[in-house]
């Protein structure tokens, strides 16, 4: 199939404003008469709120309003209170908020709010938290015999005990991953203003999900949805960290009480410990294999730290536990566990990177133990078409093996040094794979064909990764015109149709398909409008390559502009709509080979090269897809070797800044090689599927496996700290 727009390397449509510094992010916006919001946060990991006195703060210069937990009788959609009521359950939990005329006045007023806390014992470790007698984070509603269980998910297939009985070898290992921040560079920010005449509230915010924001705000502020307009702003990075409501309800409530616009900017420090970072996990795997490496049984017990409030970690964790492999007998029990930590949010691919770190590390252990090449064991077990995958589906295509093999080939797997070098610096190579299920969710788009034949696309999906540019390519392809003839507008909740949030790699897959369907709808309307004039039934009118013609009648054709202008006369307007929620899951498989250098004396790990392959179905915009792969892998490198939250014995976060929470810098990145495979086609536009999450999934495991190859140290706990390697090496001496 020849394409005119799909598959082209099109620069981001929002790029010119971004490189020029013209893009207005939340912090850049100022409204006339705007007040500043400030938030008081708990210094305790767990405490009862005995008393809050706000009278002093109220009298401070410039202060217009002070609110406490009473302002919000209900919690948000995930069960997280906006301001703590009666108890604080993590350090940094918001307790009260103020609105004042200047930022400094707001800050001063916050420190004038007096709170008496009665500190309580706290629990921070997931394993401790599930023991009998553990401190309970939510004492009112829990089973004391099984404390702090926020959610359980179980999945079963076959007979796992019979599987272990039939296995030649059984391996049992436990893996751990840390709390990490998503690492977006733009801190959370929101503005709100209420129109006193209509009682309508407008909220401008840096969010991944404006319609979900609207639903949560309607509930929290007790307003009908029609009275709330959420305007999703350009987002300076999110990676799952801006899925949920954050300071929007605080800005909204302060705006309502004061009748003035209110802006709330979260500081970098507060963004570290008081928003929704990615939670820790402990994963126990018991795996039975045949001598030839075939997997026969897997029992997994997964504990995900959900922090102080409920989350969705356990469900997704359970659904991914088999990895991109055939596992005939399987039993997974997955828990979300409460601790006195921040409420855990999403991070690119949710718990898939955790689970795959465990699975892929253990698969490496198995391969080495059985004397099978780590590549070979993966190929032998790779999912094929028709294999059951979790969630009651069947694998729709055979592609996993090719993805894994491609990564290995591109990395020169067969030529890699077979023995570990003896010098101070040891090189090693490791491979890992991973998968992610892409769910389209509620997706919609409008497409208008203008009288001059240009095309306007409107969606309510937040454009994080350049999806608007891909939408332009999809629409251009549908009409057979160049990308320059298409504009894409991200509307807000008043001006665009409803969409789920921009998460889980769903936007290009789901909303992209909605755009394609909206284009088809518009083409149908054009054809109907013209059918009488052209004297042929609508289904014989063909729209392609920017022209409208009659099938089988050469010579009778109109330009799109002529057709659109006439059709507008007949129909008023050509407005195509696409809305869907019914696409089957797409399965996205990624594989990576990491080459590392390990300093035997200091334990320092440097990732020298990272080869990434991935099935993307169809790369609508290869440049953008490569950017997703490289960016995700970069986050995987951070997850693998340098990022973690570090707490002291009092439960206080110690590394609440970008020096001590170490994200990889320009000199910490390897050479990347990216191979895109365009084979596993699902219901997405032109066969495309989500691409953003999968490439983070295998990275940490590939690095850990490379470290093992280099120095023979098996790290089962992320990040792979130099100190851990040195300790293990000296133990082995």
């Amino acid at each position, binding site marked *: 199939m020849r394409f005119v727009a799909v598959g082209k390397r099109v620069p981001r449509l929002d790029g010119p404003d971004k490189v020029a510094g013209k893009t207005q992010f939340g912090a850049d916006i100022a409204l006339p008469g705007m007040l500043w919001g400030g938030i008081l946060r708990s210094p305790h990991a767990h405490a009862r709120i005995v008393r809050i006195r706000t009278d002093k703060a109220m009298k401070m210069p410039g202060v217009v309003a002070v609110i406490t937990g009473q302002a919000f009788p209900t919690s948000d959609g995930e069960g997280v209170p906006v301001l703590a009521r009666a108890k604080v359950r993590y350090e940094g939990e918001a307790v009260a908020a103020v609105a004042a005329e200047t930022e*400094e006045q707001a800050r*001063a007023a916050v420190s004038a709010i007096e709170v008496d806390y009665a500190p309580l014992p706290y629990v921070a470790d997931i394993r401790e938290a599930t023991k009998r007698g553990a401190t309970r984070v939510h004492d009112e509603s829990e089973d004391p015999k099984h404390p702090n269980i926020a959610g359980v998910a179980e999945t079963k297939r076959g007979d796992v005990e019979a599987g272990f009985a039939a296995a030649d070898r059984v391996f049992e290992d436990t893996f751990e991953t840390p709390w990490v921040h998503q690492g977006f560079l733009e801190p959370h920010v929101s503005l709100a203003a209420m129109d006193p005449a209509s009682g309508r509230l407008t909220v401008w915010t840096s969010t991944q999900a404006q319609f979900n924001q609207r639903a949560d705000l309607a509930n929290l502020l007790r307003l009908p949805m029609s009275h709330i307009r959420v305007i999703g702003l350009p987002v300076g990075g999110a990676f799952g960290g801006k899925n949920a409501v954050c300071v929007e309800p605080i800005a909204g409530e302060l705006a309502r009480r004061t009748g003035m616009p209110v802006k709330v900017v979260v500081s970098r420090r507060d963004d570290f410990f008081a928003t929704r970072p990615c939670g820790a996990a402990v994963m126990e795997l018991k795996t039975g294999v045949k001598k030839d490496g075939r997997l026969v049984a897997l029992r997994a017990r997964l504990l995900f730290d959900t922090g102080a409030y409920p989350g969705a970690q356990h469900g997704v964790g359970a659904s991914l536990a088999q990895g991109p492999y055939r596992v005939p007998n399987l039993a997974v029990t997955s828990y979300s566990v409460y601790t006195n930590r921040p409420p855990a949010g999403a991070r690119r691919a949710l718990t898939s990177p955790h689970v795959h770190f465990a699975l892929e590390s253990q698969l490496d252990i198995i391969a080495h133990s059985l004397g099978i090449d780590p590549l070979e064991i993966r190929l032998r077990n790779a999912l094929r078409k028709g294999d059951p995958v979790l969630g009651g589906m069947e694998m729709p295509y055979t592609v996993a093996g090719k993805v894994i093999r491609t990564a290995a080939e591109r990395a020169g797997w067969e030529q890699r040094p077979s023995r570990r070098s003896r010098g101070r610096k040891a090189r090693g190579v490791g491979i890992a794979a991973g998968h992610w299920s892409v769910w389209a969710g509620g997706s919609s788009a409008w497409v208008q064909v203008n009288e001059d034949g240009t095309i306007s696309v409107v969606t309510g999906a937040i454009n994080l990764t350049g999806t608007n540019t891909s939408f332009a390519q999809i629409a251009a392809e549908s009409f057979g015109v160049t990308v320059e003839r298409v504009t894409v507008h991200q509307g807000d909740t008043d001006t665009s149709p409803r969409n789920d949030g921009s998460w889980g790699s769903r936007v290009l897959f789901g909303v992209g398909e909605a755009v394609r369907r909206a284009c088809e709808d518009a083409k149908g309307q054009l054809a109907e409008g013209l059918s009488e004039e052209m004297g042929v039934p609508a289904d014989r009118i063909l729209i392609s390559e920017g022209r409208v013609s009659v099938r089988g009648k050469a010579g009778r054709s109109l330009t799109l502009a002529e057709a659109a202008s006439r059709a507008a006369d007949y129909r008023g307007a050509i407005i195509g709509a696409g809305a869907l929620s019914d696409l089957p899951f797409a399965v996205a498989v990624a594989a990576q080979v990491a080459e590392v250098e390990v300093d035997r*004396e*200091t334990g*320092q790990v*440097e990732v020298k090269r990272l080869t990434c392959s991935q099935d993307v179905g169809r790369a609508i915009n290869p440049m953008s897809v490569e950017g997703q792969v490289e960016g995700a892998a970069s986050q995987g490198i951070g997850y693998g*070797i*340098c990022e973690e939250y*570090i707490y002291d014995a009092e439960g206080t976060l*110690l*590394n609440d800044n970008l*020096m*001590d929470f*170490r994200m*990889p*810098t*320009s*000199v*910490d990145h390897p050479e990347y090689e990216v191979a895109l495979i365009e084979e596993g086609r699902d219901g997405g536009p032109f066969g495309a599927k989500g691409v953003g999450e999968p490439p983070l999934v295998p990275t940490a495991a590939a690095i850990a496996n490379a470290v093992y190859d280099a120095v023979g140290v098996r790290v089962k706990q992320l990040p792979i*700290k*130099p*100190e851990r390697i*040195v*300790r293990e090496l000296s133990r082995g001496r």
Partner: protein
Amino acid sequence: MAEPQMLQPSTLSEAVKALAGRGAVAMAGATDLIPAMRKGEIRPRVLVNLKGIAEMTGVRRTRQGTRIGALTRVADLLDDPIVAQDLPLLADVAAGFASPQIRNLATIGGNLCNAAPSADLALPLLVVDATAEVRGKGGRRKIAMSEFFRGVNRTALRPGEILTAIVVPRPRRRTGMAHAKLGVRKAMDLAFVGVAATIQISPDGKKCRRARVALGSVAPTPRRAAKAEAILEGQLVTSQLIDEAAEGAASESRPVTDLRASREYRREMTRVLTRRALREAFRRAGKEQP
């Protein structure tokens, strides 16, 4: 919080007078000061901006040695031809200091006066017996770099005193210098351990005539490793001797466990990095023309 008053003296005596006032705080590059003020850790009533004081700027050679004005920016240390010749180790360390954005603001005097246990720039100065030039109400005085640091964020400066310059003695013959630093990231990282070393060898190139070893991030202050130095001085340099000296440095380190690394790891890395720095310093000393 009351906004502080900003004073911009143009001479040292004006600055000394200004600093005598209540709540006066000296300011140079301000890269440590601004975050501390914003966090409320310090609440100055008067900020004394030293940047207009000509006497505190520039690098030049004097009879005592190389004089580096305290206002010299970290970025300038990288490019300065005199530093490149007289103390290339300082330029090396400056190159790994934070980022260009910070190196263009931060000053050597500010980094030393902030007196962090990890103060990068202190190490090369400690191993060349540099001296701090200080001016206060009582006039001028000199403080050996080895006496300058007194504790975490504490120096030997008396209230109201200003660090005006660092004086580095003329380079010694047959001397090699090296440093080693360990962090997780390859840049923008506060070191777990930093080591600088100099070795002056005998004319036959075999014996260590004089040795200096300085350690960072393994004690409340950057400090010399006297034991390691004593092990080396006067001895035939062998790989075994260097190992012993490295062991000595590790044994006299006083590291703590903090968010960046454990005490045990820091001590072990003190040994590893001291050995690396000494080996390199010895190698370089052999390359120097006698």
